């Protein structure tokens, strides 16, 4: 790591000011920032520790909705009884992420800013070509080892996958990311790589994530996060699905369905096609399995990751069916 100064923001305004400073980076837990600084991906000159700001770690959840302060730690949210009761997929996505130690350190705001695990992105010395790091330099992952790269939402400039778990749930349930006054829908908070994979979020200098809110819904209350990976634990997803389900009073007809995919796309991937296909239909294994293929509409394999196109719909189907008591 390059030498940097370390300071603690005394107020939210100070942290906002810091974001306007060239070379400054906010430390909101540090599990990503220090990791990437050690890799040489980021080279902060000033590290501004915002973890001691008061009032940004609140956790509130009810059937009406949830609101999490940006500095709420992953482990606290995961264990919160009201979150478990009203947003089980949120709690599950957090519990299945990283390790107990990292969940104690990482904050929700920091988690949203987590960057890709693309091995080429993370290795600047060996692979200088990366459009995410150096716009216009090319993509070293193309033609390389791509087992964990994205099949959805990629571009010629970048095939990196978004690795996070929580954000997958957030986009499924129409969460909102609060940047102080400004509120951005979670789905819009993550940008497609397009020609500018270096720009990952619509966040502006002077803006800091302050909170995340999720509207309450029957689907959120009956939700699950299913994460499939090689190892049983402590690994990013090969494919994951955040799903919420609401049935009509008949107990069969799907009134509301939320589906988002993780581990397979360049951003947390809402699958509205699957939702549309199934809403209003009767919940049957046949219908769900058929509709789940829509989850990979437009998917493009790159070398080693073709399996994700096969896997993702199965994860979606299993998650829906398990919520419906059919799996």
């Amino acid at each position: 790591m390059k030498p940097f100064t370390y300071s603690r923001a005394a107020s939210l305004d100070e942290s906002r000011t810091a974001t306007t400073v060239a070379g400054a980076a906010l430390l909101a837990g540090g599990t990503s920032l220090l990791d990437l600084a050690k890799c040489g991906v980021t080279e902060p000159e000033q590290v501004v520790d915002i973890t001691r700001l008061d009032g940004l770690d609140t956790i509130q959840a009810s059937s009406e909705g949830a609101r999490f302060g940006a500095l709420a730690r992953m482990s606290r949210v995961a264990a919160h009884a009201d979150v478990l009761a009203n947003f089980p997929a949120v709690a599950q996505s957090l519990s299945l992420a990283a390790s107990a130690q990292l969940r104690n350190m990482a904050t929700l705001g920091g988690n949203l800013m987590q960057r890709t695990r693309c091995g080429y992105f993370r290795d600047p010395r060996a692979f200088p070509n990366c459009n995410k790091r150096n716009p216009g330099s090319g993509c070293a992952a193309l033609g390389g080892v791509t087992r964990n790269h994205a099949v959805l939402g990629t571009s010629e400039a970048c095939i990196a996958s978004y690795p996070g778990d929580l954000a997958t749930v957030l986009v499924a349930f129409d969460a909102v990311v609060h940047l102080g006054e400004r509120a951005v829908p979670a789905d819009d908070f993550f940008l497609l790589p397009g020609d500018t994979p270096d720009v990952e979020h619509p966040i502006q200098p002077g803006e800091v994530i302050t909170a995340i809110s999720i509207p309450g819904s029957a689907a959120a209350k009956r939700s699950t996060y299913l994460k499939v990976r090689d190892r049983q634990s402590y690994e990013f997803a090969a494919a994951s699905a955040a799903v919420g389900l609401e049935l009509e009073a008949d107990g069969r007809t799907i009134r509301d369905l939320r589906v988002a995919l993780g581990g397979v796309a360049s951003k947390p991937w809402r699958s509205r096609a699957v939702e549309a296909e199934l809403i209003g239909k009767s919940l049957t294994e046949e219908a769900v399995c058929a509709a789940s293929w829509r989850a990979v509409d437009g998917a493009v394999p790159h070398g080693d990751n073709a399996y994700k196109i096969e896997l993702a719909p199965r994860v979606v189907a299993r998650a829906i069916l398990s919520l419906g008591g059919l799996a």
Partner: protein
Amino acid sequence: MTPLDMPMKHGDAGDGASIGQRLSRHDGKLKITGSADYALERQFEHAAYAVLVPATIGAGRVVSVDTAAALAAGAILVLTPEDDLGLAQATTFTGQRPEGAFLPLPHEIRFDGQSVALVVAESLEAATEAARRIKVTYEAAPVTASLVQTPEDAGTVGEQFNVAWGDAQAAYADAPVKIEADYHTPREYHAAMEPHGLIAKWDGDRLTVWQPSQWVHAMARNYSDWFGIPMEDVRVVSPYVGGGFGSKGFNYGWEALVPAAARRLGRPVKLALSRPQNFNLYGGRASTRQTLKLGATKDGMLQSILLTGASETSTYGVWPEQVGAATPLMYGTPNYRGQQRIVQVNTVTPGALRGPGKAPSAFGIESAMDELAYAVGVDPLEIRLRNQPDHDRMSNKPWSTRRLREALTEGAAAFGWDKRPMAPRSMRDGHQLIGWGVATGTFPVIRNYGEAEIRVTAEGRVEVVSGATDIGQGTYTVLAQTAADAFGVPVDEVSVRLGDSSLPGSPVAGGSKLAGVMTGAVHKAATAAREELIGLALTHPDSPFHGIEANTLELKGGRLTPPRADAPNVTVAELLRAIGRDGLTVRRDTLPEDMQSPEERKRAWTTMTTAQGPTVGDYSQHSWCAHFAEVRVDEDFGTVRVSRIVSAFDCGLLYNPKLVESQWQGGIIMGIGMALFEEGLVDARNGRVVNNNLGDYLVPTNADVPEIQVISVGIPDTNASLLGGKGVGEVGIVGVAPAIANAVFHATGKRVRDLPITLEKLI
């Protein structure tokens, strides 16, 4: 006549109170309190920190190294290919010493990650950042990244690995049942939790190196060769080792840079590799491929085995991963032919990783036997029992002990194998397909020589002193047990000093031989010390036993007692006080008479040329095991979870079953990693291992490991070692991967012949 010259044997050998007991780890308290001082944790006032700069091309030449930015960022010394370090080539473990100068930073690049510079600074942070600022200009050359990029006939045949008896081709052609299949294993890594590295410190022309090491004596010789100083002036210290698994047995070239830098700077220099460098700067298990042809009768009796295999090595060193290491030993085929090719690719030279050769070899033959079982419709356990060989066909010698049949039957009973339906896909639990698989494994008994010192203190305590190392297998503990029994004191009266090349000689802690060798040496030294003490007790004029009518005494529980009850009964400390001695020191080795010269002793302690293979002597000697695995495969996702393992082992006498069981389980767990997760992913364009970290190179976590039951079916084998133990550390991994692969076949009906068995191979 001195007591030492007295020919008689005094009393009985040790009472055996300790060996074979389930004692807790002798060094355990230090390790659970954080006070065990691992080599890289030695603290120095003025140490400087070194960081290696890796090459970012897979082949070619270093044209120039620009150090300006590094120096500006705080580097106090940068060593580059332009530096003449004045080093000489070192003797290898084969005892050969190449001519000429040794260049740890050659201009020629043979693999990605090869060191191109060493940067030293006042702090670790400064050195790390300065190293990042080194700019290297290369001339790149085409890369052969890995074995999978090479054609079947690539490389050269390793003639020394040719094994043949009978007429395997003809027998195969005539066999009514034929199996032919290709098996592949990828590059695998040690991933010991403690990184490699060293601290070097010069005192005048004397060099001390603190370094995690499986073999301090060989490393001391290596440094003495490199730096042209007498071996007596080099000391390698390695009191505790945070895992080795074969990777810390020999020096690697980059290690020479640290003493070189320390000498230039006149201060201690410390280097600890980063985790990615622990994948790039020394070799793991080489990738292998093998084609197996089995010819058999319709009831599954083997008629012929044909093996053609290949493993990758580097372009500058030869490390054969012997895919035929287990194949000819497992079954009683009347006809056999095996051949192996060695293929050069742009990698760091591979090395020994737990169960070298045997592990990939067993994956081939034990998968193929399962395929044969299904081809002939014979239970996989039964076909193995039917084909057990009555002797070693390769050496034409009888087995010393081979209780593999017992391992198979007792393991099967504990597992409940008799309830196994033969048909694949016949057991399920919801979405999970359940399968049961069996496979066997072996590892040779390797014998060698050792040396140990026993120091009896004025307080009557016993200190065992040896240069052998403990990498977690339990050297401290079993040597304390051995000395306690042989000398006749309680084990908690024994302390053990290890891991220092200035201490008595030892072979490498590798190849599952150290316990057998060193218990022999310690037993000999402790017995001699005991005899010397008893001799003194009987002959010294000031001894309370002087003049009693006895020619022997019993030394037990730290007390000396004569045969007659009315005679005195004293502690060792009391005797020493009475005769005016402040202690006793006895050093013994197990070298034969004709190997006592200084040259021969150096050869024994610093090369592998004195090691004796499994068929030296009248017998063929090996450890054996049988693994029974249950897997649960998600039928939609292809994810495999191992839900139960029972393994039965024949490793002879167990010096300490508690520690042995830990090692067996550890081998099995590494085998789970080999079966399901572990694979160095190589970028075909530059040969870089891109998953060079513990987040992407997956080793099993706690949640990946089920209940594991281990069973000992061994009996003491005194051909293998003085006390009757055979090796335990390596054999545990051998056969695990095929047991799991066979279970996956049973669960799913899919035969996966290339490891690891990742989900995309099953969906």
